[in-house]
């Protein structure tokens, strides 16, 4: 029993990391209809920014988080101007390739600037965790879980209950129509990139104490988060979180009961099954056909 509960807790913890990054994927997808393959690298940048601020410059942890998030919001704007905006009138393919290029550039840029040595970041909570019965609860995973739930709730309220969220949705569904209605499309997309860079950076800040800080950390999480977005249904916030959690739990139990070396295979097997049988994901897209 303790064995399974431990696996469940870890699976949900890992899954919420995937979900957090998946949220960023979904957000940009909803606004621009393209998948941002540099989303994982936003997390990597956030983690490295924390290492530089909190460890190299020895700033207080909370202040470092705030500066990191501000930096990432700015970076999201730059990313939009450099990677998406010049290609906005092209089809989705050049944009996707552009984000892949940005991802490679970011990883190698950080590698050249900071070197290949992995870094560690302490947790924001000094207590490493607590045990209930046989099950160990890692505090950082608990924090990740809570933050993910909060961010999902905020995102839901933002999109469904605020005017600007609705404007962003309209932009995502039909840019021409939206602009005819007087919605500043370019600004909406700019805000989307800034917010999703912030989300990615937040994921990096939260994940760094658990996974350590390496140049490749973002892309390995992003691959799973991408799978989670497809399983949950690209374009649906609830779907991303359910997909992420399901993926985390499936791969953790698969590893424990079937085979550890094939752990990554379980995630992509689930992805494969979904692509084959239900390509629209668990929740599907509410607007099936997009212009």
């Amino acid at each position, binding site marked *: 029993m303790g064995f399974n509960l*431990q*696996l469940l807790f870890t699976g949900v913890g890992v899954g919420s990391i995937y979900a957090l990054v998946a949220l960023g994927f979904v957000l940009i997808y909803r606004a621009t209809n393209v998948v941002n393959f540099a989303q994982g690298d936003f997390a990597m940048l956030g983690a490295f920014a924390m290492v530089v601020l909190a460890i190299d410059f020895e700033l207080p942890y909370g202040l470092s988080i705030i500066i990191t998030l501000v930096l990432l919001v700015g970076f999201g704007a730059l990313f939009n101007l450099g990677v998406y905006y010049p290609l906005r009138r092209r089809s989705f393919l050049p944009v996707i390739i552009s984000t892949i290029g940005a991802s490679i550039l970011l990883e190698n840029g950080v590698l050249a600037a900071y070197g290949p040595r992995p870094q*560690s970041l302490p947790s924001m909570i000094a207590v490493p965790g607590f045990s209930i019965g046989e099950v160990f609860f890692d505090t950082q995973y608990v924090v990740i879980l809570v933050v993910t739930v909060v961010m999902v709730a905020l995102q839901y309220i933002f999109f469904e209950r605020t005017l600007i969220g609705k404007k962003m949705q309209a932009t995502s569904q039909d840019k021409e129509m939206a602009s005819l209605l007087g919605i500043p499309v370019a600004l909406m997309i700019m805000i989307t990139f800034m917010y999703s860079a912030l989300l990615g950076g937040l994921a990096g800040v939260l994940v760094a104490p658990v996974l*350590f800080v390496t140049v490749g950390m973002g892309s390995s999480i992003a691959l799973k988060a991408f799978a989670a977005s497809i399983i949950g249904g690209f374009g649906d916030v609830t779907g991303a979180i359910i997909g992420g959690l399901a993926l985390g739990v499936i791969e953790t139990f698969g590893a424990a009961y079937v085979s550890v070396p094939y*752990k990554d295979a379980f995630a992509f097997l689930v992805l494969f099954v979904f692509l084959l049988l239900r390509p629209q994901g668990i929740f599907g897209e509410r607007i099936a056909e997009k212009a």
Partner: protein
Amino acid sequence: MRSVARAALGALAAALMVAATNAQAADPIKIGMVAPLTGPGAESGRFQTQGAKLAAEEINKAGGVLGRPLELVIEDDQTTNPGVVLAFSKLAGDADIPAFLGPIRSTQIHAMAPDALKLGKPVMIGGTDPALTHMGNPWLFRFRPNDSYSARVIADFGVKTLGKKKWAIVHSTDAFGTAGMKNLVEALKGQGIEPALVQGYPNNSQDFTPVALAVKQSGADVMGTYMTFEPDQGIFAKQLRQLGVTLSWVGSPTTVTTTALKLAGPALYGSYAVVDFNRDSNPTAKEFAAKYEAAYKSPPDIFASWSYDALHVLANAIGSAKSLDPEKVRQAILAVKGYQGAEGTYNFDKNGDGLHGYNIVKNNDGTVVFDKHIDFDD
């Protein structure tokens, strides 16, 4: 104005030619060296060339070899296989070079090995893939213990010194980890032990809970590991301790790298590891480390110690062969027995392996201390 400049250039050229002739008059013995000066291995290349330069200075201060000074001719291999082949063929074209120092990475040595065989001159290497000296190439001489010894030392230390019989093996599923696991299973079989758990994992796993739980459930009292990347090792070590597993741990050299110590912190306290170079393992190592620090203002590591030893052994071999003839130098290297180097005691076997054992070190609350050296006769 222009003619003045031309005259100055002429004088400079003449001076350079005089300098060149002077150098020729001293007639140094050139030793070719292939090292990663650029690319991902650049950091290790710096150690490697500095170790060799330190040895060359010592040899020349003591009168050189056959009455002639040694001169290192270094070519950059760019840390790539094509780079190694290019660099080596450039050096091989110089008929005045009687012997070479090669790279430390096994894959690159495999890439240049056919050229070394064709050239027929001795090449000192630092790669630890056992196959390198067992594939019929008589010109490769190894100055680090090969990987089959690390597994034997882990098994020997765990069973005989720690007295543990119930083993768990955790390994990366890449080439390094799988080969290490196979060697360790084999070595334990030699001690009459069947491991309670052999558990592989893919590199860059975000979570090791299933692995840690498997180790816990196996009831093992000692664990041997071949883990490739330090972040994986750090996550595993932390989760293992969190789940309350407190068994003895004897790991591959990754377990005590500076990065591993920093990432895992207290989770790795009390663990053991095999390493080929440790400054406290013997007096020569201690002396080497002190000289290296004095010369380069930073402590040496495994990338520096083997090239230092290799140049010394090569110089001795040329001296005792009294010739630069490749075959005579080859025989002289193979005849080296009981040479005390920084990495250990060199006893060359017929395959060209100089070292046959490893040091065991312990992570004593974050500092790495020398525990013992285990050597084998075969």
